[in-house]
């Protein structure tokens, strides 16, 4: 520990974060959302879409809601209907023909048992995928950290695949397929392989499958398991988390507040969805990546440094509560200080080292400069090099590799190749230089870290007083105001009844099997 932080202060920060999170966790425990319910159906084995491309899970959930309400969950009405009419989930049309009611007594028990069994099969697939990942990691080998994380974003899965494979061959350990700009606001998950996305490719079960298969292929070729990442975010967070588990994705962007702040999604909707998603991720052995880096694109990286730490502590708390282990908490932060200011690099080192020392067991995700990247690709290449250097000097776990063209376009093949040359040089040239990096006691590095930590404690203190929802409404994070009664997807939130039944949460909360 190079910063000599005061353990008492750290403990205090954690305690405050837990207190601030508690009411929100209670909210999440007592509510459900259309997407949570659709995720249950996906786990139970419902797949596919109707002729207009509306997924059956949406059709069914909407029908249930209309006819029986969602406060009891979809499981009971749906499986009751199956029982009554002797149907199976492979035949959604006939199911939709049926009328949905909430069973009681003996019929409720039968419905519950069948639902539980169906969902258990889905979870079994997730468990199997987790085991399969372990097998492949053992077989192909697990790259040592920092992992090199690269983005592909052509909008066309069939262009993404060769680019992802090329990136892997050039040294990428993790491939993220970013999503089409609009997807996070879609209240359904598109179906099938897609070729038309804007600035990203749609997250679909089939696209997940295709890319994972392509990466398994290169993993074998390279003798190094290449991880796949996508975004459990937006209105379908729970379903995408589920699909990630079903298709053996390895990491997922998943934040407790990103959707609220950057997609104007309703806060309560988001908090309910993220809890379920994280329970699934926990079970799937997926590493989540949180999105604190984004705050620094709308707020100033120096002024708002403490909001990043506060948010990480909240994400940690929500994650633990949902069953995630420390090794699954890829807390995010970023190298976003204005390069024009004095000591910018030293301040970055202070921030990065602070995060490292606060979360020693978390696979930290360090994001490259974006906000201050301009059309000057040479300046960009330089800034990315110093990001790489900061990452290596402070022992970050996952490095998202910056592109010199960040200020211009989504990455080109050659941008990615040059970016990899950049980080390869830095890692090779610098070696164990961190040995020689010893922040001077009382020096700028140490003092800055101390200051940010104490500002964090003060902030969390205030949050506890006013409540987290109020703090969000006041624009505490990313200087963006998001009141709890506004935002997209609020109508998809439903308060649970006493009889609410969700076989998935039930199974996930009881039979936790986490490393």
């Amino acid at each position, binding site marked *: 520990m190079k910063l000599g932080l005061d353990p008492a202060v750290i403990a205090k920060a954690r305690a405050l974060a837990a207190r601030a999170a508690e009411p929100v966790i209670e909210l999440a425990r007592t509510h459900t959302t259309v997407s949570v319910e659709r995720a249950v159906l996906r786990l139970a084995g419902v797949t596919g879409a109707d002729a207009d491309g509306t997924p059956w899970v949406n059709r069914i959930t909407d029908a249930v809601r209309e006819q029986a309400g969602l406060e009891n969950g979809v499981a009971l009405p749906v499986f009751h209907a199956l029982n009554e009419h002797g149907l199976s989930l492979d035949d959604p049309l006939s199911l939709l023909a049926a009328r949905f009611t909430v069973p009681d007594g003996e019929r409720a028990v039968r419905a519950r048992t069948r639902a539980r069994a169906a969902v258990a099969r889905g979870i079994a697939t997730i468990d199997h995928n987790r085991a399969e990942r372990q097998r492949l990691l053992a077989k192909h080998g697990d790259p040592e950290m920092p992992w090199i994380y690269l983005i592909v974003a052509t909008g066309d899965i069939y262009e993404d695949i060769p680019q992802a*494979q090329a990136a892997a061959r050039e040294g990428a350990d993790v491939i993220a397929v970013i999503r089409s700009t*609009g997807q996070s606001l879609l209240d359904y998950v598109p179906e099938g392989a897609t070729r038309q996305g804007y600035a990203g490719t749609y997250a679909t079960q089939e696209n997940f499958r295709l890319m994972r298969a392509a990466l398994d292929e290169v993993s074998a070729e390279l003798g190094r398991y290449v991880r796949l990442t996508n975004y459990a975010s937006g209105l379908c967070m729970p379903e995408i988390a589920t699909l990630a588990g079903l298709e053996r994705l390895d990491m997922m962007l998943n934040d407790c507040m990103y959707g609220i702040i950057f997609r104007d999604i309703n806060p309560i909707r988001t908090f309910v969805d993220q809890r379920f998603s994280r329970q699934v991720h926990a079970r799937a052995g997926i590493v989540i990546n949180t999105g604190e880096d984004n705050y620094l694109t709308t707020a100033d990286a120096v002024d708002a440094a403490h909001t990043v730490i506060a948010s990480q502590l909240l994400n940690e708390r929500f994650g633990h509560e949902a069953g995630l282990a420390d090794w699954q908490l890829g807390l995010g932060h970023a190298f976003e200080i204005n390069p024009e200011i004095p000591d910018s690099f030293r301040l970055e080192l202070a921030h990065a080292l602070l995060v490292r020392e606060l979360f020693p067991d978390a696979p930290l995700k360090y994001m490259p400069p974006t906000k201050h990247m301009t059309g000057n690709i040479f300046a960009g290449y330089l800034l990315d090099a110093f990001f790489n250097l900061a990452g290596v000097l402070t022992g970050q776990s996952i490095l998202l590799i910056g592109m010199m063209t960040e200020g211009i376009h989504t990455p080109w*093949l050659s941008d990615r190749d040059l970016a990899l040359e950049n980080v390869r040089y830095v890692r090779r040239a610098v070696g164990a230089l961190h040995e020689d990096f010893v922040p001077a006691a009382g020096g700028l590095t140490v003092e800055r870290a101390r200051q940010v930590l104490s500002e964090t404690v003060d902030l969390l203190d205030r949050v506890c007083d006013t409540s987290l929802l109020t703090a969000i409404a006041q624009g505490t994070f990313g200087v963006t105001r998001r009141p709890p009664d506004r935002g997209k997807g609020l109508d998809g939130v439903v308060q649970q009844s006493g009889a609410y039944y969700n076989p998935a949460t039930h199974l996930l909360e009881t039979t936790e099997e986490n490393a």
Partner: protein
Amino acid sequence: MTTDLDTIKQVIRPYGDTTGDGMVQVSFTLPVPHGPRAEAAASQLARGMGLDPASVVHAKAMGPDFTFFIVYGRVGHLIDYAGIDVPEGREYPLLTPKQVNLAIKTVLQRRLVVVGACIGTDAHTVGIDAILNVKGFAGEKGLEYYREIEVHNLGAQVEVDALVAHAKAVNADAVLVSQVVTQKGAHVHNTKQMAGAFTDAYPTAVGGGLGRPLLIVGGPRFDTVTPADLGVDRIFGKGTTPAEVAGYIVHALIPEWEPDE
């Protein structure tokens, strides 16, 4: 300095280290495996772009199917610098918030209504917020700070129809739209769609401020198109400041007004 340069330098060439040497740098990827043939293809392309001689100084295989090239060379192209009619810079004076407020108050005799949004699936609000929010940009306060301007900032990912509806509802004098995502021409596509919707919604309009709101679009990568292409009244690019926008709005909607020094 500028002026005599303009008059002297009628015709110019790129400059490496000697006047008139015409030197430029180019880089690109070709979807072919690296090898002598690929390098020949690279020089062929460079010559096609007018580089002669063209020297392929770097060639790197990116996997089995692609090669990255860096080429230096001399281009013959001449630029008739004097002949370029400078793209109209600012065709109006910059005003202080005080002057803007005065203009609106004196002439309109009511607050001027502005509606702003990121349309389509674009969620990049930093740019439009920089123009609208009190906080502003580059040390200048945003339009919300102007007493006589009433700002409705609808935020991100606003549907065009919703935008039009809102503009009508509040009787907008100007509509400010931001487009940052340009992949697959999204910004151009969305802007045209928006302009079209306003034309349909105001069939009798003869122009910006004449029967329909002034349509202003902004974003960092609009330098390849003209307002006419898009069907809007004005485009603002990277580095725009709120005062430039306010000044333009007054100029466009209250042309008769003269700021008295």
